[in-house]
């Protein structure tokens, strides 16, 4: 049963990927005026624009251009970035670990805080925890990530001095960069046995992760609370209580595992938030990830780089949604067996 539905789920992601490729193609051709001018960049002259036009095949018909675009993608070519002069793919791959490390830490922070909060709020309605949860959800949904991040920097760096200057992943004046193995500084510093650098990298990560995570916290806590309330009010929890099962068993084995499905399903939305807000947070903290790369590319009208970034984010998002689907299948036999 399992492998068949696994395949079906993976196959289900393919239309999304095709859609993503078509949209990124259309976006690049929707550039006002002559796309070649955009791809050639602001410093280009007539000759280099013509060169770009030919190299991108912009003189061909749209279907031909599309086929060419897809073939380029198949060869892993996203074009060259004007700002760095490097292939866009190389730039992105080099900067991706920084973004992933940040996003994962933010996600971890959000889940570790939001899930217990939501569970406790649902287990004791109208208690202090419940009110705290609701307040956090309301506030968390109203604060723009970039503003929260700036407030944190002002408070914790400028006023209190608790965290290092929010510029990048590691202060290279005090610490030496570990040799790149995974690209995750927290891991690489440990692999290099450099505890000092590990601490330095962790200190740099704290504020951006929390700022980013706060935004994801609200929807997760809200969903956890709602899903737990539904589960606790359900018929099967009543049966479990009627059979005298302990409060613990009822809460965790019965209610929480069922609520988990709802929580996992909101993760798709949470990832959408995280990947989007990541751009803003990287901008605030001078984080050398793909988001800040995209922002500089947008400002420099470096379209190939922007396009590569959007494609990368969309593919990552499709894959994350696929992962969410697979996890949901692991939790819920009904999803797993559905034919």
């Amino acid at each position, binding site marked *: 049963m399992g492998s068949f539905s696994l395949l079906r789920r993976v196959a289900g992601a393919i239309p999304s990927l095709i859609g993503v490729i078509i949209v990124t193609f259309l976006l690049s051709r929707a550039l006002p005026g002559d796309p070649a001018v955009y791809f050639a960049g602001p410093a280009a002259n007539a000759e280099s624009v013509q060169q770009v036009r030919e190299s991108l095949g912009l003189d061909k018909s749209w279907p031909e251009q599309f086929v060419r675009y897809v073939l380029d993608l198949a060869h892993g070519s996203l074009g060259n970035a004007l700002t760095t002069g490097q292939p866009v793919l190389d730039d992105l791959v080099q900067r991706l670990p920084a973004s992933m490390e940040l996003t994962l830490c933010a996600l971890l922070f959000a889940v570790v805080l939001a899930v217990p909060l939501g569970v406790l709020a649902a287990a004791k309605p109208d208690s202090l925890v419940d009110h705290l949860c609701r307040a956090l959800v309301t506030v968390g949904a109203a604060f723009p990530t970039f503003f929260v991040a700036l407030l944190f920097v002002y408070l914790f760096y400028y006023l209190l001095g608790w965290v290092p200057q929010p510029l990048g992943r590691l202060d290279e004046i005090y610490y030496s960069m570990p040799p790149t193995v995974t690209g995750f500084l927290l891991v690489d510093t440990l692999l290099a046995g450099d505890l000092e650098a590990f601490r330095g990298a962790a200190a740099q990560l704290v504020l951006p992760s929390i700022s980013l995570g706060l935004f994801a916290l609200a929807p997760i806590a809200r969903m956890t609370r709602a899903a737990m309330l539904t589960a606790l009010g359900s*018929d*099967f929890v*009543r049966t479990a209580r*009627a*059979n*005298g*099962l302990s409060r613990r068993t009822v809460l965790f084995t019965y209610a929480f595992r069922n609520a988990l499905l709802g929580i996992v399903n909101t993760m798709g939305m949470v990832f959408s938030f995280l990947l989007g807000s990541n751009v803003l947070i990287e901008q605030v903290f001078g984080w050398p990830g793909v988001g800040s790369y995209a922002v500089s590319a947008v400002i420099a009208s470096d379209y190939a780089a922007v396009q590569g970034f959007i494609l990368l984010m969309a593919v990552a998002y499709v894959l994350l949604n696929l992962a969410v689907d697979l996890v949901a299948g692991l939790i819920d036999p*009904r999803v797993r067996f559905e034919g």
Partner: protein
Amino acid sequence: MSAPPLLAVEGMSLDFRTRDGRVKALDGISFEVQRGEILGIVGESGSGKSVSAYAIMDLLDDNAELGAARLDFAGADLLAGDRSALRGMRGREISMIFQSPRTALNPIRPVGKQIEDVLVRHGPVPRRQAKEKAIAALRKVRIPDPERRYDAYPFELSGGMCQRVMIAMALACEPMLLIADEPTTGLDVTTQAVILDLVRDLVDHSRMAAILITHDLGLAGEYCDRVVVMHAGHVVETAPVADLLARPAHPYSARLIAATPSSASSVDGLASIPGNLPNLLRDDLPLCRFRERCDRAIARCDSDPLPATEVAPGHLVRCWRPL
């Protein structure tokens, strides 16, 4: 009645605090369950049948206010004992099964595991034996191929099969009392008979007693020994089942009997009961809550609290002008 009853409920009242006011769901109800019998509790939906059971099981929501002169089970005072002691009793000494069995089971846990949870909770049962015992429990409720069904999820089983699983779970610890709350609602007639025959059989062949809560007087007539008729949070009549069906004393019981399909010769002959249950939020509820639907009311109904009259041995009615 010489032997002390298994369950004695006396003067139990229950209010729910709601946004709109207090719902006076139960008002001074009393009944007893003897060992080895099936007691039917019959009434329209909203008459308080289910909440009475929930009160006994301590399954009420936090907005409930429960009071009773006496609530004894097997000689123990359920009101005095602390709640954790009661929780330990639930599922072991008293257990309950519900309607819509497919949603009443945990949808993402194999049914065998759910039975095991109950076994492990209530007895020193090692995990290894728990599986055998769970399979035995499934076999006891005559589920075919119990070894295979052990791993099934509720959505893979039919409604009737799920109800049997729930019964197996309820009976896993061999309780003294099984409360069945509309156990066959939503099941087809054949399955209904199979499930209720099973309950009857288990009562007849073990020390267990049962309460069958149903809106279907015909069903109660077929499977119960005695019947309690409830209306709007009052117990209006208590009688051995044959006695009740033959000589109902309360006007409401008589109407219920007339409205039951099996007793009417055709659908046209079915009488309906005029009026609705009174709104239990009201502050001016009449002393007799059937007063406003009753065509036999007399002046006394409005002035004096309801009497409890024994019209025949074991046949009690709360009415000033019984039939």
